[in-house]
């Protein structure tokens, strides 16, 4: 739908109808000094030809580096059919449909997405998606505090092995609601959260966040962490990579009772890296908590003639029904991204997702083996990992990454800012998209950089 601005006449008609003299009078509650006069930093409009050139030039700046960078966004192969189908006119909506009678296709797709996500996480129900992984985690924290009525606590434990950006986003989103996010330390040898170092009497806690794999790519002891959370009256929130969930034990089966909520970043399921977005967040939960779950939920029903139909359901959770008591004031979903993800999952199937996760793991293990043969490179942790691993170098990581960049390589993520205690450490990621030759290119160039030789431009 094109955006049609109001004409001056329409604005005058509306002001007259409500009995306000002019636009300034309508907004006179806003102090004058806070009103924006004009958009000083926004340049003048450009023609289509100009903007197309600008965008081409900007895209060219990115180049086409060989990418070994993960840290929350993952380069997986996306079958051409995914976006070919997702961008068909029938699906082309960025928004959740309120009008069920006009939107059965989109509603059915979201229903199937929810079914797939519930299967993937081993939980009962899924919402129609959220903005991204970080906001999904923040929403899961808020949800757990609401849902855990027995604990009456607003404390949530969150391991330092959770993505640092997620932790910051969650603090921003929940901090002003009186919720305390208390971080749990990790073992510097294993890169995971040690269960035996958790407090014996943690007091009242609402929830524990359990990442799998964690930010370092390392497998957490999810069974023990889940059981520990439940033993202390807390809900268990699984923060998972959906691709990994296809291969690993799903959150719904962790420990004796399973996690209560699962959330995470949906980007690995058919969404291109695309400079960081748009992506989508996902959230699933046990049925008993469904009324505390934020976001839209599509349900299946029968119409007047007994035919199958799909509608938005459980809307009393949402802000247009109960504004002040809504589960969240972010009740939209990432319709287009979810469309692509659903098609991606349907094309690959459970077996395909597992093969992608397994191939990524094998490639990562192969690269780790090649790189740790080099002098000055070692594995930082001794626990199993999925498709990311932490390497410790004998010199500052940013210099090494800058050297690799000259060879057109995105070599990894420098951990020294977020985890200075790990020394010169970097996080590398290898997905199924990399060949043996790609791994050799990385190994050869890292060796040259470490030996102070000139890199070969690949």
């Amino acid at each position, binding site marked *: 739908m094109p955006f049609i601005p109001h004409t001056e006449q329409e604005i005058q008609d509306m002001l007259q109808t409500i009995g306000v003299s002019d636009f300034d009078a309508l907004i006179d509650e806003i102090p004058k000094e806070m009103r924006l006069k004009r958009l000083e930093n926004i340049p003048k409009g450009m023609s289509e030809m100009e903007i197309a050139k600008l965008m081409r030039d900007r895209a060219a700046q990115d180049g086409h580096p060989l990418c070994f960078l993960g840290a929350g966004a993952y380069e997986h192969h996306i079958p051409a059919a995914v976006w070919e189908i997702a961008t068909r006119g029938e699906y082309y909506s960025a928004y959740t449909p309120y009008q069920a009678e006009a939107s059965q296709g989109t509603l059915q797709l979201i229903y199937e997405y929810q079914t797939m996500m519930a299967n993937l996480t081993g939980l009962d129900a899924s919402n129609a998606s959220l903005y991204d992984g970080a906001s999904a985690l923040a929403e899961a924290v808020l949800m757990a505090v609401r849902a855990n*009525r*027995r604990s009456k606590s607003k404390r949530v434990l969150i391991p330092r092995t959770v993505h640092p950006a997620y932790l910051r986003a969650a603090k921003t989103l929940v901090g002003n609601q009186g919720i305390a996010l208390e971080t749990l330390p990790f073992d510097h040898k294993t890169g995971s959260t040690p269960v035996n170092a958790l407090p014996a009497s943690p007091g009242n806690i609402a929830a524990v966040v359990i990442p799998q794999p964690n930010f370092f790519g390392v497998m957490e002891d999810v069974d023990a962490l889940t059981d520990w959370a439940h033993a202390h009256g807390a809900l268990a929130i699984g923060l998972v990579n959906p691709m990994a969930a296809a291969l690993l034990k799903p959150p719904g089966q962790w420990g004796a009772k399973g996690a209560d909520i699962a959330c995470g970043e949906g980007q690995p399921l058919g969404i291109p890296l695309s400079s960081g977005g748009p992506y989508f967040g996902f959230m699933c939960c046990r049925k008993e908590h469904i*009324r505390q779950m934020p976001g839209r939920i599509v349900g299946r029903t029968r119409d007047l003639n007994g035919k199958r139909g799909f509608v938005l359901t459980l809307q*009393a959770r949402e802000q247009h*029904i*109960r504004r002040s*008591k809504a589960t969240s004031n972010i009740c939209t979903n990432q319709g287009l991204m979810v469309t692509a993800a659903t098609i991606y999952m349907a094309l690959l199937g459970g077996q395909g997702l597992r093969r992608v996760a397994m191939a990524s793991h094998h490639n990562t293990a192969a690269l780790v083996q090649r790189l740790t043969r080099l002098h000055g490179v070692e594995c930082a942790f001794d626990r199993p990992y999925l498709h990311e691993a932490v390497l410790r170098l004998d010199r500052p990581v940013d210099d090494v990454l800058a050297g690799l960049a000259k060879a057109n390589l995105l070599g990894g993520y420098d951990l020294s800012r977020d985890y200075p205690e790990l020394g010169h450490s970097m996080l590398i990621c290898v997905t199924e998209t990399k060949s043996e030759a790609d791994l050799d290119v990385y190994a050869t160039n890292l060796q040259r950089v470490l030996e102070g030789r000139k890199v070969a431009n690949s």
Partner: protein
Amino acid sequence: MSNVPDNLKYKKTHEWVQPLDDGTLRVGITDHAQDLLGDMVYVELPEVGQTFQTGEECGVVESVKAASDLYCPVAGEIVEVNEALAQNPEAPNKDPYGDGWIMRIKPNDADEVSTLMDAQAYRDMIASDSD
């Protein structure tokens, strides 16, 4: 016209209160309230052992067209909740003063219930509401 039994006490927020022999109070929503809400789909119950002040929110009743807070009619402790509502949320529609009861409260002050409206006062209130 809604059914407003004479033997109960009422709040203006449409809860009914029935004093029991053991000094506890059984609480539900009135026939008038269930009629306004329409088909009920869910009742969020308080937890046994929770304490509430008079008028404090202690639960939610949700129908196909609205969700509405449930207010504690007198200060006290929840001693029992109607667990059957989880499977049978439409009970307050069918039998608001019987199977549709919501919770039982042990009041902090046994006399507080006498300050509530009697049936005639509640009838007058809903009659004037609908004017």
